[in-house]
């Protein structure tokens, strides 16, 4: 989306500041603004920058200006708090400036590495494509490119290439098998969904991956695609329709599928998991989906696990504080990403929980890194991992 496409929204903001805090409880909503405090880091400041660039009052040949634009996790909390007519387009405005930067050739070095890696190896981490299926190497799971199955499990880039997170897709596969689900994976043939490329301003790359994904999955004749990646899920559900990509198969996030399988009695719990946990709503599984935000299924899953006590953080569901990893921030500005994550860990700890559970590998990775960096005493799990403990 170009700046001209969002012009109508650029003029919507009076900089009233409502986006800064969560309505009603008035605690911080915007990670970038909260960390840096300068007005230019808040959503309203970024809109002012977009307006000034659009009117030629500011130019993009200034690293500090680009820094403001890239220092946004795309969490959409601002869109949740703002009530003015442009409120559902704030991140679109930021993305439009990012796209403008790419178009004008003002490229962020961290994102150039990501994009080069995408082009070469179909992932944003600079890892060899040949390693994509390694997480399932010793697992008895169908190869979807060779066999027929009912469900395709899409691991996504983060879970495929981060060995410390391999327990997440492995747990998902194990649970599905235990529930009698006929599932397969694409392994080395799996590709990126393209969502990250979209968020950092490379819309051409995004379209390429979206078309490729659709083409690949359509040939498999699966009834549904299940993923543990919230970013991927949001991309399938939210971004693909924006470029008129219509999927003829059902897409479910693993939390929805687990909830469904538990309610159908297909998952039987045989062990207690004596843990007091709090649940972190990933932005891509919540606000990015608007009214279709997946808020209750993960809570239903956690409440159904014997021994698990679920407590809520002050900012939850559509008002959840971001983990800090989104929209390319964990690659381009790790300090900001980890600070944001640690703010969330402190909030989790304040509930008395000993573990934070989430449903997004980007969140989990960033939280684990923040624990290492800041030393907050709390365990971090994906919902599939904690579910598997009870099976």
């Amino acid at each position: 989306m170009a700046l001209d496409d969002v012009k109508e929204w650029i003029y919507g903001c009076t900089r009233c500041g409502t986006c800064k805090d969560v309505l009603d409880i008035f605690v911080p909503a915007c990670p970038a603004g909260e960390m840096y405090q300068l007005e230019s880091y808040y959503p309203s400041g970024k809109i002012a920058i977009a307006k000034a660039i659009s009117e030629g009052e500011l130019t993009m040949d200034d690293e500090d200006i680009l820094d403001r634009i890239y220092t946004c996790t795309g969490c959409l909390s601002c869109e949740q708090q703002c009530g003015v007519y442009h409120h559902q387009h704030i991140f679109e405005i930021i993305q439009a400036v990012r796209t403008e930067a790419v178009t004008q050739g003002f490229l962020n070095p961290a994102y150039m590495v990501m994009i080069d890696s995408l082009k070469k190896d179909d992932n944003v981490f600079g890892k060899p494509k040949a390693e994509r299926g390694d997480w399932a190497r010793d697992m008895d799971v169908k190869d979807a490119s060779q066999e027929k199955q009912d469900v395709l499990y899409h691991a996504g880039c983060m879970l495929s290439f981060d060995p410390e997170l391999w327990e997440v897709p492995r747990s998902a596969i194990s649970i599905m098998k235990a529930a009698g689900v006929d599932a397969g994976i694409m392994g080395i043939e799996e590709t990126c969904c393209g969502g990250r490329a979209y968020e950092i301003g490379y819309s051409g790359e995004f379209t390429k991956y979206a078309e490729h994904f659709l083409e690949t999955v359509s040939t498999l004749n699966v009834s549904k695609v299940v993923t543990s990646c919230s970013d991927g899920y949001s991309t399938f559900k939210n971004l693909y329709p924006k470029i008129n990509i219509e999927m003829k198969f059902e897409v479910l996030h693993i939390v929805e599928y687990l909830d469904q399988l538990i309610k159908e009695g297909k998952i039987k719990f045989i062990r207690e998991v004596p843990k007091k946990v709090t649940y972190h709503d990933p932005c891509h599984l919540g606000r990015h989906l608007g009214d279709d935000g997946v808020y209750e299924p993960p809570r239903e899953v956690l409440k159904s696990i014997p021994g698990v006590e679920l407590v809520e953080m002050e900012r939850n569901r559509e008002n959840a504080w971001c983990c800090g990893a989104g929209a390319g921030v964990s690659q381009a500005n790790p300090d900001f990403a980890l600070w944001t994550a640690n703010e969330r860990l402190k909030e989790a700890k304040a509930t008395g929980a000993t573990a934070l559970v989430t449903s997004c590998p980007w969140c989990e990775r960033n939280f684990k890194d923040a624990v290492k960096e800041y030393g907050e005493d709390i365990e971090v799990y994906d919902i599939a991992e904690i579910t598997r403990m009870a099976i």
Partner: protein
Amino acid sequence: MIEAVKSALIAELEKIVGSGFVSTNPADLLIYSQDMTQAEPRWPDVVVLPKTVEEIQAIVRLANKEKASVIPYIAGGNIGGLTIPLKGGITLDLKRMDKILEVNETDMYTVVEPGVTFGHMKAYLTRHHPDLMYSYAFSPPSTGVIANALMQGLDNLSFRYGTSSEWVSGLEVVLPTGELVKIGSCAVSKGWQSFVPLPELSGLFLGWQGTTGVITKMAVSLWPRPKHATSLSFLFMDFEGAYKALKLLARTRIPDDIIGTSFTILNIDRKAAETHLKAYFYPAQKKASGDPEFIVLSEITGNTENELNAKVEVIERIVREELKDVKLIGPERAPSTTPGLPFQIVGQLGAGGGLTWVGAYGPMSNWLSTIKKGCEIQDKYGFTRTSYTRIMAEGHYAGLRWVLPFDKGDPEQVKKIGALWKEQLEMVIENGFIPYKTPVHAIRTLEKRADPEWVRLNRRIKEMLDPNNIMNPGRWGAPPE
């Protein structure tokens, strides 16, 4: 500012607050150069975000040394262009000083830092002191408590207690020369009680738009949260009826709050809140035939349901008996509006990034002629009638304004709003109303009409406190150009 001086100043500022809280980036300077009004942008040279009183003192001393202006800033939502740096210099963004330092349950006050907003205050009281409340404006939650009180805002207890500066019970101020001074009982004792029999030095700072110092702490009154509340609405077919009713309601001394607004603005606000679509105030949206001209809302509270009902009955009876000749619908009982405050006024903030107004305080005796003339000026410019009033201090005076939301993307509308605003400004002053949160053009207009000795006294006070004229210069007390 000369580049060499600027570089030296920035280096010193970075030593004081740390480099992460000093910016000269054009993106920052641009943002602090303008606000939601039509005021001409003026860029600061540097933006600084201090965290402590000592840092502010050091910045002010440095500014004196370098003869650099200092403009205190909290949220920038004053709707008067008051934080736009007329002569460049240092924008002092105080949002990092955001602590509620004390709440005294018995004496019913709180001491806050400048970055504390209405939102913070409400959340804090709800959580820690649920039996107490503060008074909020019909404004976004990001509004600064200190800024609102300093700028004599009108809030939802203004019918009882007047402007928000009237419930200030103490100050701590960094003077323009860097000294730290306490004002009120805190100067001579440990408390911040609401009144002390001492010279009223708070008048050296309240209403001065940050031209006489930086307020670093303020004590403001709190009140018991009423257990029962309701709102009464009255729809009037003409201003004459509304005027008669407002005077009558005020003299009952029953309500906590009496506000009124053009029916047309209420319609646009409601639609914007429901649909989240852009609000259009221009070209004018006329009221439909048979629609009321003006709506009045009155907030009534009680310790018991019986007390509340008795108060409502008194008002209903007086309206029945005394307003027989007035064309009105009501009063109708509705849920209290107080729990929703502060809130984002979606319609008025949703017209295209612009919002301005001519807001003024003046005598009830001139209310009718003034509000009618203001609306007629809006008619002349083809702009929707958007009058808004609050009856102050049990009817001793009234707050009156015409809210002017506009589309900053439409140059013709921006130009028209500027002309409309100026004409309304001249008119209100002519009618004995004095603009509040006074934009610089309005200050100069008032100074031309004011008692010359009053103007000279203002200048002498400013010069005495701020010999180098560094604090938000060009506004109140500015030397003649």
